[in-house]
């Protein structure tokens, strides 16, 4: 058993570090650090995306022929880890990690030629249309329908939780093309331009005052039949591929450990009620140690999956746990932060963004100002992408055979 990387892998790691040191600007670092929402605003990600695109490191999950870097699982992991350690902004996943791989896999050559370069260049900004008000955890019951009329599909219905729909010019959506089929069977995977009169985007403001989410309404919206991915009725298969592709090679622990390190350092300067600093408060220190142990174990769990992938094995049953454990750990770390900062953690600014010159002055530190909005927004981690409850049922059935 070892955690040693090969000389080539270490050289790659060094190259990534050098690149980050040179190209990741203070403005990007600041924006990434001071974004309390799950996603980073497009003006920031576009800038970082351009840097990575120029280097050829942007579409890490795409095959080399479509512009991917052709990395091994270990290289992908090292890249993610170095980016997390350096505090790089998270990239918009919808284009690069969700619809991109789907188009690579299921798209026609024409679709690939049309869409993939525009994802890489940032010309297209994508959002995802999966959930509906009546179909959250239970996607198979979705009702938004697309009706073929000549060379167009006409879409009617609504999608909810459409992250950054207010920034996007394209949406990929699961739509019902055959109402008579069995629940999963009548569903298709459709690409729809956002800039048309039939589409209305209605903001959903989060409990932390952030605007990431929207409800998107389709009222006789249209898209060309050439924008159907795969065949009609193949939507469920494609959706499952998308989900599985998203999994594996995750790298959440480094950022959690980094966050715990920041909290620990901040605690050295927060006075406790009974003398000394919060870092020395026994109850706080116990919780910190407990979370460090959990995050340290979690990092090894991620590496165990990576080691399997690197040996060409399927990622194995542990992958299903990653979302579940990572989400809960993130919420626990956020809770430690709001408990650390005391009254300063009670500020909840309404203005956005919290970086740049227009950001509201924090009470105490910027970290204290970020603590509560982050805690509130991160409640979503155990809900989105399959809630804890759904994940556990999947693990019980698929891993434990219950």
């Amino acid at each position, binding site marked *: 058993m070892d955690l040693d990387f090969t000389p080539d892998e270490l050289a790659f790691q060094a190259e990534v570090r050098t690149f980050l040191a040179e190209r990741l600007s203070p403005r990007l670092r600041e924006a990434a650090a001071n974004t309390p929402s799950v996603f980073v605003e497009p003006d920031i990600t576009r800038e970082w995306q351009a840097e990575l695109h120029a280097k050829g490191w942007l579409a890490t999950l795409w095959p080399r022929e479509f512009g991917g870097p052709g990395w091994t699982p270990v290289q992908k992991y090292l890249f993610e880890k170095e980016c997390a350690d350096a505090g790089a902004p998270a990239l918009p996943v919808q284009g690069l990690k969700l619809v991109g791989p789907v188009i690579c896999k299921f798209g026609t050559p024409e679709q690939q030629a049309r869409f993939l370069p525009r994802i890489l260049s940032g010309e297209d900004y994508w959002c995802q249309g999966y*959930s509906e008000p*009546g*179909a*959250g*955890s*239970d996607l198979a*019951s979705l009702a938004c329908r697309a009706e073929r009329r000549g060379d167009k599909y006409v879409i009617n219905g609504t999608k*909810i*939780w459409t992250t950054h729909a207010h920034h996007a010019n394209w949406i990929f959506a699961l739509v019902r093309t055959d109402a008579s089929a069995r629940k999963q069977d009548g569903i298709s995977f459709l690409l729809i331009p956002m800039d048309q009169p039939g589409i209305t985007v209605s903001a*959903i*403001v*989060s*409990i932390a*005052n952030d605007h990431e*989410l929207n409800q998107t309404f389709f009222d006789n919206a249209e898209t060309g039949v050439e924008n159907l991915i795969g065949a009609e009725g193949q939507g469920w298969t494609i959706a499952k591929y998308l989900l599985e592709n998203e999994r594996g090679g995750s790298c959440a622990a480094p950022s959690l450990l980094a966050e715990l390190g920041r909290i620990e350092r901040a605690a050295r300067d*927060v*006075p*406790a*009620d009974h003398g000394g600093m*919060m870092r020395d408060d026994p*109850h*706080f220190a116990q919780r910190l140690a407990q979370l460090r142990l959990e995050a340290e174990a979690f990092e090894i769990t991620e590496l165990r999956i990576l080691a399997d992938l690197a040996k060409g094995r399927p990622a194995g049953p542990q992958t299903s746990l990653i979302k579940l454990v990572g989400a809960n750990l993130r919420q626990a770390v956020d809770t430690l932060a*709001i*408990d650390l900062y*005391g*009254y*300063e*953690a*009670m*500020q*909840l*600014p*309404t203005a956005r963004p919290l970086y740049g010159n227009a950001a*509201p002055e924090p*009470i*105490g530190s910027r970290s204290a100002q970020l603590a*509560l909005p982050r805690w*509130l*927004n991160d*409640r*979503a981690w*155990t*809900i*989105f992408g399959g*809630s*804890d*409850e759904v994940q*556990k049922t999947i693990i019980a059935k698929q891993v434990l055979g219950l």
Partner: protein
Amino acid sequence: MDFDLSETQQLFRDTTLRFCGPGDTAARHAARRQPGGFDRARWQELAGLGLIGLAAGEGDGGLGGSLGDCATVAQALGEGLAAEPWLECGFIPARLLASRAAAADVIAGSTLATLAFAEPGRRFRTDPALETAGGKLSGAKTFVPCGGAADLFLVTARHEGRSAVFAVPRDAAGLTVQGYPVADGSHAAQLVLDGVAHGEPLAADLDAVIDEARIVAAAELVGLARRLLADTLEYVKTREQFGQPIGRFQVIQHRLVDAYARVEAAQSALYRALLRLGAPPAAVKGFIADAAQWVGQQAVQLHGGMGMTDELAIGHGLKRIVLLGKLFGDAAGGIAAYGREAA
């Protein structure tokens, strides 16, 4: 032995719930957009119902309500998801301003008063470091509840070797007020006092009022937890996924039983605190805050994405819970202090 509400308490409870109405989030948003994030008209309405007067002594024109009476109102405000800072700007000033002329204006709702007790770098300590000197106050206060809108600050300071409270109007010379939004949408304030003249200290016992305020906060927390549990029970009975109401899923049922157990334990702890038996108020408030926050988190989780939005009342409830949980000390500190006490 009797845990029922008295007739008067039942009356105050009904009045309070009627005042709260159905917990309209649009009205709440409107209030938060007003200057200082505060709705003066609603506040006057609340005062007009006698709800501030309840906390004041009869000599001050109040109703001389017991702590139990006040807890009844606070719990009802929690259940009603009220946006009004009744605890911060009603109960506490009414108690502190006993036998002061200002009490009448506070009771009438025309003066919005608040306690300025927290100080930068002093975490949850309630003994002030700020000291009087030659009839003047100089120093800083932070996290002054509803300070963004308040007319009158009740400023704690060390005076002649003891903790004291001084009434300082918002327009006092040398006082700078900087408001900022906090968890529940209200605007707290930072104060900078630069040689602000002070009069005689208030007669009330600061520590005793803070302990009472912890119990009243605990009562509001119990109400909030009850409301979020009730809303969630309602939601899971109607929200369908996978072909049935999600309340039919066993894990959701058992989770809600755990929530119910914690709400009932919180209610019992509150009763015990009102009887002044057992743990000190800071520990009881901590115990109840932990329960309420857990229930609130489950309420968000079980509402799914909807629970994360500013549209539902759920999130407002959770944020008020978080704020009350920290007010006058958090759960860890309160329980730790009880741990240091002998049994």
